[in-house]
């Protein structure tokens, strides 16, 4: 598709092959970094950080719960932005990123809800409570599922992409409204002064592992997104010459290994 402006760098960003080859180089580093940060953060948080005065050891789940919730929400915005870029510039790679971001985000949201429930049982005596944050997370899960469902409902890949992109954008506009509404609804019905899911004002010793886990989750998200997108690229571009060469090369490599 010709363009009169010299934005070649931007359009090169949109080339699936460029993305595949460049991320291929980054992957080993990303794997190492993610695994390192995740293990350190988890061990530190779950094992070595000081106990909470009120909640004892059960609060440690926040080292998973909070970063995962962040990423779940941030992931939705990333998905919507990828969709917007795909709609405006008709960039296929952008749609592929959007398509990959959806299941990752949905899984993270589910994990957030699950870890929230695990936290809830020892803390408030129940697995589920309709407080503002959890309810908003649940709605976010349904927003993700909607985008996923729409993606696969169409016969035509392009229509599915465009419809999901529009839905993701509509969802983006709505997320602040939904969060604010649910917050307001909760305070209307439960004028308790204790905000049950607010993180306790944290001592620095507790906060550091949390920070590390947040960064670790961001790396994890990037890793997962890149891996999913690479798979999507291979699947969609399977008729292209460079993909066929890759497949042949992989065949040769595995045949060579089998011989040895």
């Amino acid at each position: 598709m010709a363009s009169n402006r010299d934005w070649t760098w931007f359009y090169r960003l949109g080339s699936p092959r460029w993305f595949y080859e460049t991320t291929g180089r980054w992957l080993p580093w990303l794997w190492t970094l993610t695994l390192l940060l995740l293990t350190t953060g988890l061990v530190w948080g779950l094992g070595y950080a000081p106990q909470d005065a009120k909640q004892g050891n059960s609060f440690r789940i926040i080292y998973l719960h909070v970063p995962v919730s962040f990423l779940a929400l941030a992931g939705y915005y990333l998905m919507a932005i990828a969709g917007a870029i795909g709609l405006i510039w008709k960039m296929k790679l952008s749609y592929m990123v959007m398509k990959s971001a959806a299941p990752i985000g949905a899984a993270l949201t589910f994990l957030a809800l699950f870890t929230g429930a695990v936290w809830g049982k020892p803390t408030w005596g129940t697995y589920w409570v309709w407080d503002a944050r959890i309810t908003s997370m649940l709605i976010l899960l349904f927003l993700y599922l909607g985008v996923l469902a729409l993606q696969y409902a169409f016969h035509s890949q392009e229509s599915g992409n465009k419809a999901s992109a529009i839905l993701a954008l509509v969802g983006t506009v709505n997320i602040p409204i939904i969060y604010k509404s649910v917050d307001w609804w909760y305070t209307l019905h439960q004028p308790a002064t204790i905000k049950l899911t607010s993180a306790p004002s944290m001592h620095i010793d507790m906060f550091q592992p949390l920070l590390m886990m947040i960064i670790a989750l961001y790396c994890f998200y990037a890793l997962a997104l890149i891996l999913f997108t690479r798979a999507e690229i291979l699947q969609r571009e399977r008729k292209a010459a460079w993909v066929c060469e890759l497949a042949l090369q992989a065949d040769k490599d595995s045949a060579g290994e089998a011989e040895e």
Partner: protein
Amino acid sequence: MSNIGFTAYLKRDLLLSYRRLGEAASPLMFFLLVSILIPLGVSPDPERLAELAPGMMWVMALLATLLSTEGLFATDHQDGSLEQMLIAPQLLALPVLGKVTAHWLVTGLPLTMVSPLIGLMLSLPPVAMVPMMASLAVGTACLSLIGAVGAALTVSLRKGGLLLSILVIPLYIPVIIFGSAAVQTAVDGFNWLGPLAILAAMLCAAIALCPLAIAGALRLVSSN
């Protein structure tokens, strides 16, 4: 051409609904019938009903609107009218607004008119009658607009109805929160104009933004 503009589509859709009065009245019938289920399913005790009434009536109104939203663009897509609408020399937002307004006049407005009767049956406190009607009038308009976005996205799919519900219910949640809150605040004796104002603000935002999303979705579906 006669098929240009907001009023043209508004009148035409109203005429089409009038010709199929049975179909047009089904959301209303749904609303009435489901209202019977509440006392039967929960309890006929007036006090308990009064507690539940504001929220339950809103849920039922929401479901009734959702039920009728699927058909908003479906027939047009099937008989080719949608394509003609897309290639008419007009801003696509205008016929879209015309159709959605007609949908509200045929769905939301009757619901609003019938709500005092339902309120009576469900022991809604009298002080909440006017807030209920006001919040339903404004809220169902929002629901029509937001539902139309989902209807436009799923118009070319068969069995799109269930998918439509999945897509649209999360977006409905702010409307129902403030809609039922308006009624509940009235029951509790506070000023119910606050939540109603927020509902009205949502309606303004929906009128401004939804037609864009709907038009975009209709255009992409036509290239399916």
